[in-house]
């Protein structure tokens, strides 16, 4: 306090609730006894209420639409590296599948003879292989089931290569037929 009266900052600290319990009690006691400080405190509280009750500003009706249009314009177009990353993942899956099949062939679980899809371990292997390399691409799955040739160990690479080409084509087609990101709401 300056002299015997509260300063504006002290009164505002009281109004804002920024005084310690002891400070609050002391200020309240002083205001109770000092008519000048009581009057000033009421004035500041009135000011505070008036400023708080000032009308808030809203936006014009077209504000949101305009903002959304701006956001849409600034969204990045699909980037090419996403495609390459994605293809790399698919190639990785395919290589993994080829390795798994290779391991089975080398360990004798799949014999290099005519296989009948849908029966026994070899059929299960083929179905798993179908699932891995052609999930979502019924073309490859159907192709492998109906046209599967005898699988001599030496033709595994050719077989996998063919599947890979078809897979890439299918996946490229899926990728480019997808809606661009910046059109998705």
């Amino acid at each position, binding site marked *: 306090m300056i002299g015997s009266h509260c300063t*504006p*900052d002290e009164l*505002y600290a009281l109004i804002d609730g920024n005084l310690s319990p002891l400070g609050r009690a002391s200020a309240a006691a002083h205001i109770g006894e000092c008519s*000048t400080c009581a*009057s*000033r405190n*009421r*004035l*500041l509280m*009135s*000011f*505070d*209420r*008036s*400023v*708080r*009750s*000032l*009308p*808030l*500003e*809203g*936006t*014009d009706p077209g*504000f949101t639409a*305009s*903002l959304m249009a*701006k*956001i849409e314009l*600034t969204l990045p177009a699909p980037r090419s590296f996403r495609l390459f990353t994605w293809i790399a993942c698919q190639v990785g899956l395919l290589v993994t599948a080829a390795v798994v099949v290779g391991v089975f062939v080398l360990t004798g679980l799949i014999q290099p003879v005519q296989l009948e899809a849908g029966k026994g371990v070899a059929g299960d292997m083929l179905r798993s292989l179908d699932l891995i390399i052609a999930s979502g691409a019924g073309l490859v799955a159907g192709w492998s089931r109906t046209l599967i040739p005898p699988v001599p160990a030496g033709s595994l690479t050719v077989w996998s290569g063919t599947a890979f080409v078809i897979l890439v084509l299918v996946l490229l087609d899926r990728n480019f037929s997808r809606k661009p990101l910046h059109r998705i709401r």
Partner: protein
Amino acid sequence: MTLALRLVGGRSEAEELVQDSFLRAFRSLDTFRGDAKFSTWFYRILYNVCMTSLRRRRTLPGTDLSDDPSQEGTAWADAEPDVQERLESDEVRQILLEEIRRLPEAFRAALTLFYVQELKYEEMTFVLQVPLGTVKTNLSRGRTLLRQRVLERMNDEVGAL
């Protein structure tokens, strides 16, 4: 919107700046670390955008921080018992709005963040990027200057009657 409007003054410019701020926030969303509330983080972006716009303008009303409140004078109006009632009239609210626009921008920002956005001192330091002491000083000086000017105008109007 109120913060932008009180900082820059013009409605169309304020809307433009709010939109720019939304865009910046959208683009920088991955940089939001959660150190502050999202709203506080957004106010900081908005404040920076408004300040950049204000700096581009050279002829600003009320940017002179030497426009300091006097310590005494008409700051209390002890002799006006009806002042407290009049303060809550529509007429005085209009005066308040006008005088807030005339305040230096640092005071205007502090008052708006405190009264409109209802931020705490610590949140205000985050938005305004100044120390706590500066926030308190600007808020206090802003309040005092606003009170002085409003009371002066109220007295002038009473005197003119």
